[in-house]
């Protein structure tokens, strides 16, 4: 009888531990997926940042173009604030986002997402750098005096809270938790070097 009682507790304990472990693995995997989504969108953003720069857009538009493409990995919108009603500018829908991004790119409105400028608890920030690289010339492009635009786009302190559970002080894994860095680079031909002033 005592043995049976112990077995019963053992099962509960095993089940609980198994569930905890499974939950941990599940949450961890989901956050890895989250990071991977951010990485893919950042790669895409790097391409478009470089392309925007290559056709001669001003720096602030290049930055907005890059930001617009990482919206899906930028956390909740902080300005204008989201709500769940179906009214007005703050509605949470992909169509409303599309319209607002359209206006943001053309300078008609201001948009802000939490991970763009350190507004979340981790202080996540997005930044980009697009510059003409004079050191990379192909044989063809050098004959055209046509360089490449190299862009680097990155999120710093991207949220990765699963490591908070494992390591509240975030010292186990360098480059994780508060220090999670997601970056991407891209190069495209610089067209504007031909028709815009130096």
């Amino acid at each position, binding site marked *: 009888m005592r043995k049976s009682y112990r077995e019963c507790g053992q*099962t509960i304990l095993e*089940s609980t531990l198994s569930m905890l472990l499974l939950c941990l693995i599940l949450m961890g995997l*989901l956050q890895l997926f989250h990071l991977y989504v951010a990485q893919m969108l950042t790669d895409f953003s790097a391409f478009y940042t470089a392309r925007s720069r290559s056709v001669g857009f001003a720096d602030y538009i290049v930055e907005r173009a890059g930001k617009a493409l990482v919206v899906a990995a930028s956390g909740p919108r902080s300005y*204008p604030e989201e709500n769940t009603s179906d009214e007005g500018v703050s509605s949470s829908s992909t169509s409303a986002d599309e319209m607002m991004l359209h*206006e943001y790119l053309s300078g008609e409105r201001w948009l802000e997402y939490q991970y763009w400028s350190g507004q979340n608890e981790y202080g996540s920030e997005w930044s980009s750098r697009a510059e003409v690289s004079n050191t990379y010339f192909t044989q063809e492009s050098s004959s055209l005096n046509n360089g490449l635009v190299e862009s680097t786009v990155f999120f710093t302190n991207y949220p990765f809270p699963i490591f908070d559970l494992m390591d509240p002080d975030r010292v186990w894994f360098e480059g994780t938790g508060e220090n999670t860095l997601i970056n991407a680079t891209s190069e495209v031909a610089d067209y*504007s070097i031909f028709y815009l002033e130096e």
Partner: protein
Amino acid sequence: MKMKSNASKKRRKYQGGQTLILAVLAVIIIAAAIVFLFDLQNIIRGKIKAQTAVDAAALVGAKWQMNSLNMIGELNIIKACTTIITDMPETASGKYSSNPLWGPNNNDVSCLSEASSLLSQMQVRIGFTGPLIGFGAAQQAAKNNGLNYVDEYCVELAQKYEYLSSEEGDVYYGSDVTIPALYGYSWREPYTEMIRNIMQYSDLDMPTGVAVNMNSCWVSEPLLSSDSNISNNYLSMKSIYTAINANYWCALTGLLREDFGDSKWWGNIELVMNSNSFRYESELLPLGLKYTFSGSGIYNQALDSGALYGPDDANEKIMDNSNTSSGYERPKESDLLHNNYDNEDPYLCDENGEYLYDADNNHIVYDAASYDIEITETGINKLYFINPATGNVVYPGLYTKDTDEYWAPLPRISWTVYDTEFWNPYSDADSDDWKDTWGKYLRKDFKEGYRYYGAVSCAGAIVQPKLISSKWNRLDSKSQDTENDYIGDALEFGGQSSSGGQSINQYASRLKSSEAAMRNGTISDIEVFSLAKSYGRIPVANGEYLTPCSVLMVLPVFERPLIIPVELEKPSDFTPDFKWAAFKREYLPLLGTVSNVDDMPALMAESYPEHWNAGWFSFYHNALVKLNNASWRQQGIDWLETVIDEDTEKTNEDTCNYWPSSGPGTRQAPSIPF
């Protein structure tokens, strides 16, 4: 004891299943996440691939526009050279003769005019065939970069081909295959044949040649007209439908306050044909050219601008070669042909140099068969003849005024020129107009000589990647959902009392929004554009440059095609979205025939079952149903007019264009939509 033991075993058995359920749940969630990642990767890869493909297509199109313009420009130069050389025969001593008897007579000028017409015919041929080659090459470039042909683009071009090749098109293109203005070139048959070949079209098969849509100016392009301002001002704007579906009131401030009346606020929408005159050049990737007979003015303008010959030898010119590295020396100024040539006919004048005119107020040309000319240094020359009986020189008291005393053929020469509707310089870089447009968008100003609007090559495509998550729609339907049921609704359990609950509701709302987009099939559509343009400029004196169109005559000055920002010169009616184009062509004209928007589903299912049943128009139809609802419109107006700050009386509408000065960055771009 045995009973307890059985109960214990039973309990353990149930407890074991708990972990299994959790594990299965975890696997399902992870599988969904993997599917999502797979699809996202597919979409991003598709976007980059499609962008690269349309970039390549636009560049190739612009490359052939450049080739065509340069070839046409070369033929203009050949005309100019031929004209001058014909009029300036050299003597044995290598100098240009001042004796008019060495020069051509009026008959020679007529022959020259005919030669010019033949060259013009070649220019017209290039104007039709060059851009078409570019269009075909662009399709190949897009395919080489991974885009497949698009049925709808092929069908659209096939319809245009049918229109072009049938008698129906005679209204616009003319029934006679030989148009006099085109210098005898029978353009229509070879032109339609080229389009047919590009489409890879035969009577038996569907065309498969078109992978990207490119800018064109078809005279048969359908346009919409209505007696309702709402239709004319709003219903042809794609973004309006997005704003309506999203309840995005800020973009609807004007529309919501329109007078909708009691019924049929859209008016009688009709499809009209574009009645702009045919341009006599390829309608695909048009070059924007004109053919003119007013020869001397065109030539003189080019000459005076310094484009043909510069006033100094410090820079390259078109009609003399200063490229010493290639072994050529620029001719001395005195040897340049134009310095020994004037473009005036020898006309009769009085002894004071005043021209004489006939009864029709035209100049009187001198009779070269009857008189010789005694050249004087004053430019007013005496006419004489030799009496055959006496051998004496006789002066009849007639004078001519001309520097070279040769017939000027220029008024008989036709030139290919830029159509100022297409080609014109940007406004000056220092002007407010410039600062409000290009100057706001671009990093730097354009280089001198590149500030012009002209022929462009715009390419666009819609790609629909095959996504696993597109099966979502089927899952929804299997759960016996109605149109108004969404999984997102079921997850909206967070409540509004806590920030965590609100976050859950926000994510649920986004899920619902994504579901709706998946249902109407628009979420996976990848729409990409690219715009390329041929750049060139004309070097003149002192190292300065002119834009090509500042000299009206087309000259071979174009150097290379380059990608430019789409938003700045995209043709206004250009769209690669065939669903949107079909909506304008099929749905809206039919809407003009009914008085209730609810009648449309049955009517569309009967008239255009293929597109309607495929859901092409559901997004737009739903928006129109919404807009037709007076209470929904009032809801929007109420929101816009709601005061959110009693002190400043600021309304929601005031926040629509709000740009916080304290926020990062400043509002620098102009308020014109991309």
